């Protein structure tokens, strides 16, 4: 495979759930096509600013962050794919993938990290979940300590999840110093 790697069972994750498809990673960048046609994601190599790997239940997830702040998550890689793709990204894009860890402890306390459009909730420095602020339709401050994020209700983008996230809220105790007086607070 001199001109790249082709993976036939890779799903793209996002607001509406996951969609299965085919992913091609080649010298020019990344191309993902939804199974049966429709949605496609094309990323030029020069637009990639960061790549991450994360072990998720029974498989691996590739995160690709691009220049404009968008972040794509592709799931379905075997351990040996991680090895071969890591060297591919290093040799072809000059990017060394970072390793992230998934929190499965089930705790509801941790830290909030804002990076580009993504809000990440971390527990014990491991990622519990991520949401995109681009999908947030409204934010509200409730009382002095609670921040509510409301998500767009979208029936059109091929959502395949049965239960859809509508609202999420965080409690920021007075003892937290991260967001005190921070105007970028979510």
């Amino acid at each position, binding site marked *: 495979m001199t001109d790249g790697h082709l993976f036939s069972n890779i799903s793209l*994750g*996002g607001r509406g759930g996951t969609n299965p498809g085919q992913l091609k990673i080649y010298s020019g960048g990344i191309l993902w096509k939804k199974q049966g046609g429709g949605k496609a994601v094309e990323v030029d190599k020069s637009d990639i600013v960061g790549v991450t790997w994360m072990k998720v239940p029974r498989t691996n997830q590739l995160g690709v962050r691009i220049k404009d702040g968008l972040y794509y998550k592709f*799931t379905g890689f075997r351990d040996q794919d991680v090895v071969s793709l890591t060297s591919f990204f290093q040799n072809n894009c000059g990017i060394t993938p970072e390793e992230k860890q998934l929190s499965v*402890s*089930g705790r509801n306390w941790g830290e909030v990290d804002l990076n580009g459009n993504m809000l990440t909730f971390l527990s014990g420095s491991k990622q519990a979940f991520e949401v995109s602020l681009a999908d947030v339709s409204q934010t509200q401050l409730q009382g002095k300590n609670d921040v509510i994020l409301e998500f767009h209700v979208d029936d059109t983008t091929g959502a395949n*999840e049965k239960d859809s996230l509508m609202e999420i809220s965080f*409690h920021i105790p007075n003892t937290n110093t*991260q967001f005190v007086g921070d105007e970028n607070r979510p």
Partner: protein
Amino acid sequence: GSMGSDHRGAVKTVGDLIAYKNVNDLPPPRDLMIQVDQKNEAILLPIYGSMVPFHVATVKSVSSQQDSNRTSYIRIIFNVPGTPFSPHDANSLKFQGSIYLKEVSFRSKDSRHIIEVVQQIKTLRRQVNSRESERAERAT
């Protein structure tokens, strides 16, 4: 350090309960819908294409409602420090500076599933809470 002395009392608190130890301990991925894992005392929530686990001991309350379009809504409220009788209060010193997930709402077209999930969470929560309070009582 000060963290080391936290276990001196040897009383297990809610904060010590863990849903899963390893990533592959999670139940096999099924449909992206709210699931209850009785064995591991966890609820799994579909967030951005991933199933995100929460130990049932972090749940304060759960409720559902249905609108006129037959769409169901489920609201899960988690324990946060500062609310009366919150089991986290003993812990909030330990995790000082943390941010808490306080509440999540989902909508669903499957009202039977939502009603079932609410019942399962309530039952599991009751079981775990009574077990933990018994354990705390024995320890004092």
